């Protein structure tokens, strides 16, 4: 095949992961909405017996949205766009096609095992690393398979230089591999003792050391799962959808290497005022502030790419999603560093301001980008027009309102709570009992639950739209070059 001939790309693996992204997205956010409601209305804890309490469901929410929804979205967009920016088709190599499908099958087994074990309460109990050791092993296999597919495709590429999205996918692969391995070093107890459950292990690290390794992972999981591959997406989907050239190569380059270098140092901002040595805390705090610029660099690069394209912003809802995603990305990458300042963290840590910060990022940035990516991909994968533009518009406004409600309510709740914990009366005694600081949050928890309902409704509209696109969208003769056609 000649390098300039139109390639027939093969989307079978991308389609599979698209479906799981939608499925896990729905399940994860449904649980998110339920746990949000439970904090406002505790009676909702008892819908599913011991499996339905807030505490059992919370890790299910985080794991399903991260390892189900986001990671599926990453794989789906990777298997879609890597072919295109490298100019190779999956169909050209039976081997890579096999690897891709095998990866999907094992990934599904892993995801289902994850849900079942977490519901049963089988957990290593480190945040974002709850899966027990047999599942860790399977994770490693899935990840390695992805690496094989990635470097296989790179090896076959026709485009000499790697496009920016590929830089970020490579970083995602390497970063997660390194961090995951170290954080999940654990000893299965049944193997040593000869009695007890096979599913149980103890961490190789204890106490403060365990905390350090855990947040080295936890923070950089944000980097390499919620940031890096999502940047890979925006660098492809925004220029592609808009037909605009990326604003500045230099800015891409500096943001990328800046992000790679700085991110890893900032992890100890999760451990401020803990028993971690003071100098490590200071490092994390200072590097977090430096991190603002490499983070904003990518967002600004994308916003500048849209320079002069106001009409696209008003007319194309996919562009709206992506421009707003950049903005929410900017919000969370400024909010995070400010929360990493020690004095601010003294208030913010442990409060609802942190989940507020989290969801600026995950709802406004991660999920927006994944949904926009899927809406861009679907017409090309299924060779049909996107089913309904009206639905996309409605979804956009519904979900934007939801994100705003989420972060404003948690922002106010968190700051109030943090300050109430510290408040001292005129005689020098604590002003509030703990329960005072809980009951005062009721309205904010209720608002957040409402925001969950709105966001989830938007997501359902999105899922329906994609389903209709795949089954009933108007057939397309030619693949659109840039703007996604929608009815």
């Amino acid at each position, binding site marked *: 095949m000649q390098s300039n001939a139109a390639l027939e790309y093969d989307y079978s693996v991308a389609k599979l992961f698209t479906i799981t992204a939608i499925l896990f997205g729905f399940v994860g956010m449904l649980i998110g909405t339920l746990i949000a409601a439970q904090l406002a209305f505790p009676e909702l804890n008892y819908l599913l017996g011991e499996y339905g309490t807030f505490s059992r469901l919370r890790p299910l929410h985080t794991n399903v949205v991260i390892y189900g929804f986001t990671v599926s979205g990453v794989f789906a967009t990777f298997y879609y766009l890597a072919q295109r920016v490298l100019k190779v088709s999956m169909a050209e190599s039976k081997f890579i096609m096999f690897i891709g499908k095998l990866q999907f099958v094992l990934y599904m087994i892993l995801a289902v095992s994850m849900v079942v074990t977490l519901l049963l309460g089988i957990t290593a109990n480190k945040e974002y690393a709850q899966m027990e050791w047999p599942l860790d092993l399977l994770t490693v296999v899935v990840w390695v398979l992805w690496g094989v597919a990635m470097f296989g495709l790179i090896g076959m590429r026709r485009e000499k230089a790697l496009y920016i999205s590929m830089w970020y996918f490579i970083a995602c692969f390497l970063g997660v591999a390194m961090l995951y391995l170290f954080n999940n070093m654990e000893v299965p107890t049944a193997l040593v003792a000869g009695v007890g459950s096979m599913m149980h292990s103890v961490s190789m690290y204890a106490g403060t050391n365990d905390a350090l390794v855990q947040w080295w992972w936890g923070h950089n999981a944000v980097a390499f799962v919620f940031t890096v591959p999502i940047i890979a997406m925006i660098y492809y989907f925004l220029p592609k959808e808009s037909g605009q*050239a*990326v604003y500045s190569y230099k800015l891409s380059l500096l943001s990328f290497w800046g992000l790679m270098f700085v991110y890893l140092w900032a992890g100890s901002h999760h451990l401020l005022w803990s028993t971690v040595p003071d100098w490590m805390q*200071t490092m994390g705090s200072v590097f977090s502030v430096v991190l603002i610029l490499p983070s904003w660099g990518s967002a600004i690069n994308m916003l500048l790419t849209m320079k002069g394209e106001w009409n696209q912003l008003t007319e194309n809802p996919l562009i709206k999603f992506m421009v707003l995603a950049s903005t929410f990305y900017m919000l969370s990458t400024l909010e995070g560093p400010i929360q990493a300042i020690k004095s601010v963290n003294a208030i913010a840590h442990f409060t609802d301001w942190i989940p507020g910060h989290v969801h600026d990022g995950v709802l406004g940035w991660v999920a927006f980008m994944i949904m926009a990516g899927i809406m861009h991909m679907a017409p090309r994968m299924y060779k049909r027009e996107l089913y309904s533009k009206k639905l996309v518009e409605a979804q956009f406004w519904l979900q934007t309102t939801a994100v705003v409600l989420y972060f404003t309510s948690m922002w106010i709740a968190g700051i109030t709570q943090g300050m109430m914990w510290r408040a001292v009366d005129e005689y020098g005694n604590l002003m509030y009992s703990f329960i005072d600081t809980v009951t005062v949050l009721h309205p904010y928890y209720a608002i957040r639950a409402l925001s969950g309902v709105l966001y989830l409704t938007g997501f359902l509209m999105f899922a329906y739209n994609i389903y209709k696109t795949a089954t009933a969208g108007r057939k397309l003769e030619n693949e659109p070059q840039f703007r996604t056609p929608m009815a």
Partner: protein
Amino acid sequence: MNSLIVKALGFAAILIIATIVVVKQMHIDLSDPINAITIIGAIAIAVLTAGVSAKYISQMKSDTASGELADENWDGIGEYKNELPSGWAYAFLGTIVWALWYWTIGYPVDAFSQIGQWNEEVKTYNKKFEEVHKNADQATLQQMGESIFLVQCAPCHGVTGDGLSGKAQDLTKRMSKEQVLYVIKNGQNQLGYPMGAMPPGMASGEAAEKIATWIANGSKGTPPAEFAVCASCHGADGKGNNGMSPNLTEYDQPLVEHVLKQGKKGMIGRMPAFHGRFTPVQVKALATYINTLKDN
């Protein structure tokens, strides 16, 4: 200014004002340095994000794309060789210089100790409240006692001190009949009074009933004759012989002191010891407050 920027800043302002209003309603002192820095941080987040992102978005209206394109092209995506946006570049450089300054000159990484800071904080606190605590009058003590009670004791004794239907001591009364009978039967030795232990079986049957009824009814009037056995230790009036043994008629200061120091396991359950958690003034305040509960 451009209308988009104005709207964005307007939103930021509303968020900040709402936050301050809510916080103020909770009587939070915003001049406390930590609170102040947090509010400044919050303002920075809202204003900078809204302002800067609105600036770039409004450029979509006012500006046009330009620059020299690179040779490469990926799936139709081109790339300009534009220079870095200068604001971004200087800010990046600025934060790097700031970080280097911070580590070397400003706050060298080994110069700060959070435990040292805690010691300072406690010192400052003590100085600030020294006066209040030294000459606290009844009213002050009672108010102090109430706030400590609500934070530390209410989870067991209830906000009103009623013991949550028998889950802990009902502090609005001294003792129930059952409790007195329980002590008479079993004796007690845990509060650390100078008298030491109270032996079991000091009374029984009718006599015990009479004594217990009298105490449980608030030790009013003259005690029954049977109380004589008790009086040898608790005093003829049951008030504990000047702190030699527990006052059976009310929660006086020595009693509260002893309970907080030793904890207590009785008929109802166990009360943890709070030894070392309170200053003497705070204990006095608690005693004062608990003593007022009986009146309500």
